[in-house]
């Protein structure tokens, strides 16, 4: 019952063997397309699966790899970043993402000190799911230790309860921090080969600087078909909405 309550929404329930096998067939077709170097076909297949189903780090990784092989650096990094938020410790993903970032043109600029990342420097080690599960287990252990201590009031159980309690607080604070970050996560990736960042909402306004595929920006706000982005502290401007895509939100078809 606990597992059901903790299960993620949007997980497509099995509606029948036809649906499951259709997804499996689609996945295997995409893999086969990748193997015969039809990377655009593989990317299209993986993307249909990604947008239609629940989040999967491995599927996003495959999609990113297909785009990268197909020469679409921006979308490759976009999907790698989406996978990284689900599986921050995947070594293959880390390698491929680092590889892709080396191909980007624009040098990343320092966005300044982020206190949250400094205080919760360990938060990137675990994914959201693992972090929450760890908090649930630690919390249960804490109250269990308190219950045992009540039956057998010994110093060892008090110490154990204190340690586990501290760990629980730490995990809960980290979960809270991650939720806060996710809520305000406006990171986006430039998906077009090149985009001119302008001072205003039309192409007549002054071009301030250029960004290229794979550059990571913050999406400030959207007005009509334009989006205001921030690349670094000194580089802000407007781009066509379609030139950037947010990492956190996967648009459904």
């Amino acid at each position, binding site marked *: 019952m606990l597992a059901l*309550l903790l*299960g993620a929404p949007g997980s497509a329930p099995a509606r029948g063997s036809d649906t499951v096998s259709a997804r499996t067939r689609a*996945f295997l077709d995409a893999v086969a397309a990748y193997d015969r170097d039809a990377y655009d076909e593989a990317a299209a297949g993986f993307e249909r699966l990604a947008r239609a189903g629940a989040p999967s780090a491995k599927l996003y*990784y495959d999609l990113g*790899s*297909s785009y990268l092989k197909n020469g679409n650096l921006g979308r490759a990094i976009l999907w790698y970043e989406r996978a990284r938020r689900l599986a921050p410790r995947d070594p*293959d993903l880390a390698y491929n993402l680092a590889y892709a970032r080396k191909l980007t043109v624009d040098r990343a600029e320092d966005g300044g000190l982020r206190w949250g990342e400094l205080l919760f420097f360990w938060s990137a080690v675990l994914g959201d799911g693992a972090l929450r599960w760890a908090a649930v287990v630690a919390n*249960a252990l804490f109250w269990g230790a308190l219950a045992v201590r009540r039956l057998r009031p010994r110093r060892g159980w008090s110490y154990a309860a204190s340690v586990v309690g501290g760990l629980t607080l730490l995990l809960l604070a980290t979960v809270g921090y991650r939720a806060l970050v996710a809520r305000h996560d406006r990171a986006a990736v430039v998906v077009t080969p090149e985009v001119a960042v302008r001072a205003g909402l039309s192409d007549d306004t002054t071009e301030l600087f250029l960004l290229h595929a794979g550059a990571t920006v913050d999406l400030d706000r959207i007005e009509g078909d334009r989006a205001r982005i921030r690349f670094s*502290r*000194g580089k802000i401007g407007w781009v066509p909405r379609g030139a950037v895509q947010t990492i956190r939100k996967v648009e459904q078809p």
Partner: protein
Amino acid sequence: MGQTTPEDTKAVFRNTLHAGMTAAALSLLLVWAVPAVALTARALVDRTRVGPNDVLGLTVEVEGGDGTVDTSGILDFDVQGRGRSSSVQIVNTHMTRRIRYQYALIPKRTGTLTVPPLPVVDGQDLTHTDPIVVTVAAAAASPHRVQDVVVEADMPRAPLYVGEQIGYTFRVVAAVKLYDASYQEPDFDGFTAVKLGDPQAHTEVVNGRRVTVTEIVYLLTPQRSGSLTVGPAVLTCQVAVEGTRSRRRDPLGMFDDRFFGRVPVTEKVLRTRPTTVDVLALPSAPKGPVRFSGLVGTFSLSASLHPATVSAGESATLTLSLEGLGNVDEAGAPPVAAPDGFKVYPDHPETDTRVTPEGTRGTKRFKYALVPTRAGAFELGPFRVVTFDPEQGAYRTLTAGPLTLTASPGNTSTAAVPALPMGVPEEPGPVVRKRAVETTGHDILDLHRGLDALTPVRTPETAGFAFALALPVILFVGFRWITTRRRQKPTPGERMARRARDLLAEVRRVGLAGKGASLLHRAVVSAVLARSGREGEALTYDEVRDELRNTGLPVDAIGRVVDLLSRLDAARYGGGAGGTDLLTEGEQVVKVVLGGRKS
């Protein structure tokens, strides 16, 4: 003198509070009264015509906000930040705050260079400075001649072999005094670099001018083959500007020292040219019983035995000496083959080397204590070492020996002990030079091909997560309540109430005949005592009335209780059993008296 009264203290406190509030209000008023100034910025340079080794000073002044200057767009210069300062100016009640950011710009080339418009951001505000055009002349445009300070890098250009040691010399030739000199080492990517001691300086006369030559020497060893580049070494210093000394003010020249702040200086950044050398891989090592030792250079091998004649059971010392120029300090013990019947005790090798610009020069000695376990004449060696001679571009096999050791009959009591394997080198096997693993290809890793890629990541939803966190708390609270209840001792009232109920149950079981009336009587009395919260056995009618009155039981109910007790006494002492109505009446009375109290 009068004493401070409480009224005085209150007055002081009141006045302090008033003064503080007034100051805060004035500050706020001042802030609000100052009209908001739009963000503006301008860029200034100290000159627009410089030499290739001159440093250009750039100042960006920002008004109307803190502003952050983005210098990443400056491509024609290397940019070094030199700090910031701020000032406040009040003119006709208008307060202006100005921030100055200072930078040092080092030109990357000669010609016409541009400092582009620099964006300055303050929150939502954005402004740009005007562009600045600077001319960098090929000849020095500064009043100071370039030849007064020259930097050079000296390194052999001939092709090298991997492992071949060479010297690299950074040299500064200065005809004038240098101040605040700082040196940045070049990038020795692909080499191991050993700095040879402290910088060495000497004076020379060049073209009639006395110059100071300062040298820093490194010993480099290429670690991989290919075209390797040693990056530029950079010297940053300040040089006195010639012709600015005022002799009339200081005829003795005693105070013309920067210490006294009287000598104007100009900053210089000098770089050497990068040096590229071709490094050849060593050819395939020769096949044979002796493997390549890893030594690159010119070496010789010698062997000695002392004494050459011993008695069996006595030791002689075998010394193998490797001498030459190259990585002799990395040499491992040469392999040694000895006949059976020897005990061998290797000693720690001795190294006598010094590092020179040509390479490591010296000798490394390997000593062994040899103990023959039987008499006879034994041949030791020959001893061989395979090295690579970069001058000839070929491998050489160095040979020493053989040597003859004669053992006369003597104390061989230990001869039964088998000899250790001879020639135990410092390291097992020949020394093989390790080299860095080179990357030979670039690609991403393969797909995740398993069907688990279709399995979604399960993340606990917020409601379920909160429930999972709350559940142990709820269980613990319930557990705590249960254990607390169990630990509590019943009160006297609770004990009496339980006794009343137990007695009632007994009466129901045995009936009113016999002792049933007594039991019922005791049950009613127990109920009265339970209501009062005390323990006891018997009560008079008056005590019953008092107890029930004090605990708030209505008068009619009190009468009912006393009446029942009276009837029960009659049944007890009168010999009658009483009717079932007595039992029914007794149950009702007990229930009324207990009033819902739980035992």
